[in-house]
């Protein structure tokens, strides 16, 4: 039966998760040079259109439709067939199924948008759209089905509360592939890739944090104690990630930075995502601290080796997905969530093994498919990269005939 409280909760959560995509657009666009601002923003915004299309026609059915061999949902819900104001019998049974569908749509939208940070400032718009669309079909939907749609990883006991594997690890692995296929931006190591507007990045951070409550707490799919736990875990992990990153900067560079605070917060929020509703606030704090530490090190290391993951999708999102999923294996507790699992600290080392298995499967699968897909598009669609002159001119003018700021 439909519960108006739960329905409100997921409707508003869906709106909040939708808002995360513009939030991400600003988070990213603040970090690029001013000639690429609009192109970067559009790479996120356009996902709202392209991936929603994909989702309502085939994505939802592929992800949450009746299972075919543990691998994928069938297409019996093509075009939302049978998805109505009545609740599903399987998922979120107290809210209209169509609300569950659209809530999940928002997750599908933001995931490929996350990847764009890896190839920022250098990818052509057309190939980017093709990549994102097919990536969603070939990577996001299957993994979503495996983990959340009753697929084989779920059967195996792999848990992911709100998207450590499904969202962050898939996008991080795709980002790694993209960095390898596209190569570094022109002038890396010589030009100054300074953020053109950190206030814009901080605005994005604020919006993302706000939306993340809808993302994680909403994943409880009901306004209950689990949602409450997930909400609190989310907040304290963000807080801990920010504290850790800022502290490390203070120690290593004598000064904390605004971008560091934002980066740490996002790392913490991303890391707690798979675990939010399954662990205690204390565990969430530890995860947040680990997130700050590991992502800080990853990003520092990246700068040393000249690997141009421009806005650190691998080092922040991908790594967070891994740490959070591992952390869940360690800290999960049935005392917190009886529908969850007990982890290593609750004496169940096996569950940690299961989570590691999940990470390897999803990571490898997402990386390999992304890599092949990118290579394929590179060859068939006249190249993924902007022409060098266009890269110099910048996306805004070269790809969209616009200028971000006319002052």
């Amino acid at each position, binding site marked *: 039966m439909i519960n108006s409280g739960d329905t409100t909760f997921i409707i508003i959560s869906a709106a909040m998760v939708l808002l995360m995509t513009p939030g991400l657009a600003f988070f990213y666009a603040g970090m690029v040079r001013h000639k690429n601002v609009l192109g970067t923003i559009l790479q996120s915004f356009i996902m709202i259109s392209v991936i929603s299309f994909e989702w309502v026609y085939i994505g939802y059915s592929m992800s949450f439709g009746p299972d075919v061999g543990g691998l994928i949902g069938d297409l019996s819900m093509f075009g939302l067939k049978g998805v109505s104001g009545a609740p599903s019998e399987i998922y979120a049974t107290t809210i209209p199924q169509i609300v569950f569908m659209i809530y999940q749509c928002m997750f599908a939208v933001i995931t490929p948008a996350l990847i764009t940070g890896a190839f920022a400032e250098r990818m052509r718009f057309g190939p980017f759209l093709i990549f994102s669309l097919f990536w969603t079909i070939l990577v996001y939907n299957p993994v979503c089905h495996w983990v959340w749609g009753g697929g084989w990883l779920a059967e195996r006991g792999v848990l992911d509360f709100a998207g450590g594997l499904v969202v962050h690890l898939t996008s991080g692995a795709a980002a790694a592939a993209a960095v390898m296929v596209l190569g570094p931006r022109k002038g890396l190591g010589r030009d*100054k890739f*300074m953020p053109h507007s950190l206030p814009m990045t901080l605005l994005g951070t604020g919006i993302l944090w706000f939306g993340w409550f809808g993302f994680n707490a909403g994943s409880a799919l009901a306004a209950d104690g689990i949602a409450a736990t997930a909400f609190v875990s989310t907040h304290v992990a963000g807080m801990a990630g920010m504290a850790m990153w800022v502290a490390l900067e203070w120690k290593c560079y004598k000064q904390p930075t605004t971008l560091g605070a934002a*980066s740490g917060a996002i790392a913490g929020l991303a890391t707690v995502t798979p675990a939010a509703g399954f662990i205690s606030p204390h565990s969430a704090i530890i995860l947040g601290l680990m997130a700050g530490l590991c992502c*800080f090190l990853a990003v520092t290391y990246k*700068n040393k080796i000249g690997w141009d993951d421009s806005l*650190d999708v691998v080092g922040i999102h991908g790594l967070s997905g891994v740490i959070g999923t591992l952390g869940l294996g360690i800290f999960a507790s049935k005392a917190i969530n009886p529908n969850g699992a007990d982890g290593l600290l609750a004496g169940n080392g096996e569950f940690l093994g299961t989570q590691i298995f999940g990470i390897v499967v999803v990571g490898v699968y997402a990386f390999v498919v992304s890599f092949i897909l990118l290579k394929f598009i590179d060859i068939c669609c006249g190249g993924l990269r902007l022409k060098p002159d266009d890269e110099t001119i910048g996306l805004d003018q070269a790809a969209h005939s616009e200028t971000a700021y006319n002052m």
Partner: protein
Amino acid sequence: MKKIEAIIKPFKLDDVKDALNNIGINGMTITDVKGYGRQKGHKEIYRGAEYEVDFIPKIKIGIIVSADQVDAVTEAIIAGAKTGKIGDGKIFVLPVEQVIRVRTGEKGPDAI
């Protein structure tokens, strides 16, 4: 007539303007510029990537004066702009052959 170009530290603009007003100079044009010289820039850090920023914000003041005012003007600028620390800037004097006021068409010293 001469054109005096002075590169100064931005926060000294008001002092220079006052010093110039005091000697009766009431016209000037300023431009935001960036300077490179002995004064060291600073380091900026973005997610661990350190960048040396060596162009430093400065203000360029352009003033057209008659030749006999050059010394007074340069002294006023120095008085206003000097902090004694590296990077205080420079003053250049260039020859000007003609000055015209757009509004009236007046030429030469009258146009200033």
